[in-house]
């Protein structure tokens, strides 16, 4: 098992006019013991920035981020990290399958496993038929699913997902949520999932972290009372939890409201 530890993360960006803009305001959390941690917050608050910091693509101004492996094995072992980006970020000159092998190659997955993994994850996202197609000939939702498959196919120990279901229709999204939940549990992944959608957070998250508008800071942390297997969108207990989540979000909005 591996997990993410974020301590006191502070991040500034520069505005056009050279002034500093605080994006992350002392964010601390870890994903220890938790399968899926959901980050729920309004648009532009800094969720993607936080994921970028965890993946090492963005440097923090203060605080630190660590991806820790409590493998007990060699300390040199750095946990494998998968990233499903908000925009799919596909290599347009490579076919669907080649986009996945690009990740397999980079992550040094043994060549012998490639074909089995490709078959399995393309099947899961429902793109087996399109494996030789180029991304620009696919629909927006299909491209998003390629990005999802690329994050999953390397079977990472830590999985970062940035609104991976946002461009999909309700039924496809629901099926992929279930599938992702199953995969995360099976592979004992530690997952950070960014979302706007309260229901998605309640369904996917073992723990939900609510962030406020920029600068992002943690305003509330809720633990899901239901285990992954027992979450049913029509179940009353589930709906009750969703309501609690929603109330927490709405409370936050009222606080941010400018009195007129």
């Amino acid at each position, binding site marked *: 098992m591996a997990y993410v530890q974020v301590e006191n993360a502070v991040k500034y960006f520069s505005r056009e006019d050279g002034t500093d803009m605080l994006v992350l305001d002392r964010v601390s959390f870890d994903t220890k013991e938790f399968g899926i941690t959901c980050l729920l917050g309004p648009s532009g608050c800094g969720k993607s920035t936080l994921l970028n910091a965890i993946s090492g693509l963005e440097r923090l101004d203060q605080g630190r981020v660590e991806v820790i492996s409590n493998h007990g094995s060699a300390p040199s072992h750095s946990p494998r990290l998968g*990233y499903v980006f908000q925009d799919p970020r596909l290599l347009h000159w490579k076919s669907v399958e080649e986009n996945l092998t690009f990740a397999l190659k980079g992550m040094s997955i043994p060549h012998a496993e490639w074909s089995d993994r490709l078959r399995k994850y393309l099947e899961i996202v429902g793109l087996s038929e399109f494996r030789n197609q180029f991304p620009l000939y696919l629909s927006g939702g299909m491209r998003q699913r390629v990005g999802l498959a690329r994050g999953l196919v390397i079977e990472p120990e830590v999985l970062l997902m940035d609104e991976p279901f946002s461009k999909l229709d309700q039924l496809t999204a629901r099926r992929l949520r279930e599938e992702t939940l199953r995969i995360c549990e099976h592979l004992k992944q530690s997952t950070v999932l960014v979302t*706007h959608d309260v229901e998605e957070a309640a369904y996917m998250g073992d723990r939900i972290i609510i962030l406020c508008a920029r600068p992002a800071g943690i305003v509330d942390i809720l633990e899901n009372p239901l285990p992954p297997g027992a979450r049913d969108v029509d179940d009353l207990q589930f*709906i009750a939890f969703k309501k609690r989540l929603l109330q927490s979000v709405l409370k936050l909005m009222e606080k941010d409201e400018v009195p007129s």
Partner: protein
Amino acid sequence: MKIVTCASPINNAAFTMLTAKIEHNRLPTVMAREEKALAASVQAPLATEGSAIPARSKMGHGREAAWTTGLRIASILAMLLVWWALTFFFPPSLIPHPIETFSEVAAIVSTGQFFTEMGATLRRVGVGFAIAMLVSIPLGILMGTVKSLENFFEPPVILGLTMPGLVWAVMMIMFFGLNETSAYAAVAVTIFPMLTISLWQGTKSIDKDLIDMSTAFHAGPWSKVVDVILPQLVSHILAAIRYGLGLAWKVVVVVEMFGFSNGVGYQVVRGFNVFSMKQVLAWAITFLVVMIIIEFGMIGWLESRITRWRPRVEAWRR
């Protein structure tokens, strides 16, 4: 429920969350029923049973290609017509008749002279081009990625661009003497700045998000260049090759005119020395034909092969 109308940055999110609230406050049974209906409707299209699968429209493709070819042929015929018309106003020593000129072309080709002379010229262009590419591609990529290298190399590259090919040709012949090396060097030096600039600008327009993606998936430096950077530069490289070929032809002909004993440029000078416009034109025409074959045949083919992944733009480019 409260409706948020203030101009706060979270307005969008507020909207999403409010709609979410409205939707999810409905009774579970209603939701379940709706979803069943939705699931059922997804399974089959609302077509009448047993109706045949509609045929795909294939019209227009062939006709469009024929129209394009027709326009090109018409353009060439129009040029020949103008040429022919000019023969009425000028003596044949200045404007030879098209038919006589083309029989001269036929003579050049049938004696095999065309192949030896054109071969020599093509080799000079090819070698010079290869040298320039080998230096320009890495240098252009480095200039596009490393700020200090950009600042250092910008002045010489811009200065090189403004230097006329003729001056390079003279300087290279003075430096290397009248041999093949001076021809290769003149071609390489002339097109080098232009190639470098287009690679440099192309590299600056590269999608940084894709580089981040490749970093996140631990792509090695070689894979980053070959799988991520170079494919984004292909259009820039091809455009530079096209433009560079035009420059290379011009400078190689000048070099050959200075006293080489073969090559197309030398043949043109010979035509000039005996004041035979027919011979000059005949060589110019063979030259053009070779250019067209390289441009449309080879580069065009290469481009359509390499950019197979990109949907064609012809749809709106009527």
